[in-house]
């Protein structure tokens, strides 16, 4: 089947394989955070505040004496959750809405698409900031805000796929043979939506991780004392000259995971899209 071929195509690329390993590594770290972290990520230690990296604290300590490495490890949870949950939310909402819009057509379609256009004309991060400010600062609300901000892109994609496939011969044939609309949608349209949604999802996961970091950086995401890479950067900005290590590592972590997800996304797109090289 095409799926197997796509997978084989994917695995054959060393970059993609490396990226998948990195992502798996981050997931593992996030899952095993309690076992891996050498110190308590939230308990302040007044005796070791803003200490540079040493044998005890490999990546130094932060503004209230916590181990940066331990916070980094626990922070992986927030970042990965913030990458996956908003996208899941957007996909879960966009598929039914896209089907509705693409199938129903008429004024309903127009309304949905005009609202989508309008939302798309306001930059993603601005929508997320405004929504997060509205919902109140917390990781959950930040994820909700990112999910809603990401919705229009998915909605448009889902609708486009519906419109494209709706007129394909085999779908029209199925309709002519008397298959009900939900059945056609379930049997023929949904599977075809999968590939483009998957590609868009991987790109959006990367964007969502950065968005969470940005919101946390502005104080609108993960709340202290719980660690998140973005809020660690927020705290670090005050001590840039005295404790640069506080700023270095969380950013590197964000960069690595986002890069890996992007490479994976590229690989997915190339493997699933026959037009691409």
């Amino acid at each position, binding site marked *: 089947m095409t799926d197997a071929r796509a997978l084989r195509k994917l695995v054959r690329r060393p970059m993609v394989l490396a990226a998948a390993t990195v992502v798996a590594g981050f997931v593992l770290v996030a899952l095993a955070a309690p076992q891996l972290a050498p110190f308590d990520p939230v308990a*302040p230690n007044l005796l070791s505040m803003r200490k540079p990296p040493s044998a005890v604290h490999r990546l130094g300590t932060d503004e*209230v004496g916590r181990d940066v490495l331990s916070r980094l490890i626990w922070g992986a949870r927030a970042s990965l959750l913030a990458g996956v949950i908003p996208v899941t939310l957007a996909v879960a909402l966009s598929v039914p809405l896209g089907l509705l819009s693409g199938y129903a057509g008429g004024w309903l379609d127009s309304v949905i698409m005009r609202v989508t256009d309008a939302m798309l004309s306001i930059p993603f991060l601005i929508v997320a900031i405004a929504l997060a400010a509205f919902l109140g600062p917390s990781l959950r609300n930040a994820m909700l805000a990112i999910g809603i901000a990401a919705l229009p892109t998915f909605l448009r994609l889902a609708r486009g796929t519906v419109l494209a496939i709706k007129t394909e011969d085999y779908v029209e044939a199925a309709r002519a043979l008397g298959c009900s609309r939900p059945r056609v949608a379930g049997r023929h349209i949904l599977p075809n939506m999968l590939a483009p949604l998957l590609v868009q999802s991987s790109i959006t996961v990367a964007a969502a991780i950065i968005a969470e970091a940005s919101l946390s950086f502005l104080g*609108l995401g993960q709340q202290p*004392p719980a660690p998140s890479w973005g809020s660690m950067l927020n705290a670090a900005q005050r001590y*840039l000259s005295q404790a640069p290590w506080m700023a270095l590592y969380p950013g590197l972590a964000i960069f690595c995971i986002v890069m890996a997800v992007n490479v994976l996304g590229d690989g997915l797109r190339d493997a699933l899209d026959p037009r691409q090289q």
Partner: protein
Amino acid sequence: MNVTRILTALLASLLLAATPAHAESVLRIGLNDDPDALDPTISRAYVGRLVFAALCDKLFDVTPDLKIVPQLATGYEWAADNRAVTLRLRPNVKFHDGEPFNAEAVRFNIERHLTTPGSFRKSEIGEIKSVDVVNDLTVRLNLSQPLVPLLAALTDRAGMMISPKAAKELGDRFGTRPVCAGPFKFVERVAQGKIVLQRFAEYWDKGNVHLDRVEFVPITDSTARLASLRSGDLQMIERVSPTDLAQIRGDSKLKVVGVPELGFQVIRLNVANGPRSKALADVRVRQAIDAAIDREALVKSVFNDEYIAGNQFVSPSSAYYNKKLPVKPRDVARARQLLKDAGQANPSFTLILPPERDRQEAAQVIQAMLAEAGITMQLQSQENVTMLEAGKRGDFEAYFTFWSGRPDPDGNIFTHYTCKGAQNDSHYCNAEFDALVTKARQVADPAQRKQLYDKATELLLRDVPAIHLWHRRVFTGLSARVQGFTPHPDGIIRVKGLKF
């Protein structure tokens, strides 16, 4: 070749022409924030007061040790019942538009403060019932009740005098082109860019003005502000962050001076405001929280010892500090005993705090300190305004805020802890306390007032409606070339008297 040379010469002469014959002395001051409207009546932000200090003279000023001294008024006299105060005004004072300053102008200004919709001054001087023009240079302010702290209000924005003519012309856009009677007059304002002021030639005290221009430049990022000071682009910066002090001290071209602020950083506890007051209704639990916090360690570790540990409504350096009740060392055993007596060995409550670094860091340290006494404190971040609204509604157990402070002690205590006080979100209510601080408003003798406030402090420390934690030091960073600077506890830079 020749063309190049001619062009170079031309360019050089152009540059020369652009430079004035004698160098203007320009002082550039970095502000932490962009000021709001430059209208004394509707100005709210602290940072605006720095600009006003150069732009608008006030009826009175305060000295660094908080004594009230003449500025546009030359003296005052309280009526026997303390229900009226007569002000003598400085003669030959002109506003920047050439209009004369006189009793009529004072009346106009006071009435403007009292009647403008959205005036922030009304609550400060609302007790003024009427203003009588006695003669051209004498006014009498009639009060609805005896209120000695009123004069302190006249040392700030409520005492600033603006040109009545300009005020009438510009209406509610006065703040975009303010016309006052200060040492410098308004030139232009580039929003979030800079505010430019120029020496006022007809200033009543021009002998003490040594600068030609003053520019205020808002730079919200502290690293950037500091970098601009070090590069010489700015000559002064206000409210330097304690974490930046080391860099200024290490730079021989710069100086930094600091004084304790007038205000305080405080955790307000919900004592009786709605159903959420249940968690901390027992005074012993509140006392236990108080005892479990190590203020000295907090200030030392989080703020490099640059701030001052405090436990009262004024800082330990204030004349009104109750020296018999200093900051106590931490006592976890006592905290545990108090909790045991209250029958709540492991109480739990939620502290609301805004996403601001000082308080975020301190709260995490306090959280750990309380945990050692068996008290669980959850942290919940809320945007500042949301938090204050929750406070008003009683939708909190504890919240972390600060008070910027007032020169008169009354401004730090009366509205905060009296039963009907506007800042009393705790709904603390103690008739004995109310009687003490109300009496302190009516007596003019400082010694007698001190006694009253000492007793009131005793009650507050016993009942713990709020936990005062620390007082910041207001640091001003300046180029070593700047001379004649004296720091004030209000953090306001008085530009008059400064020179290079």
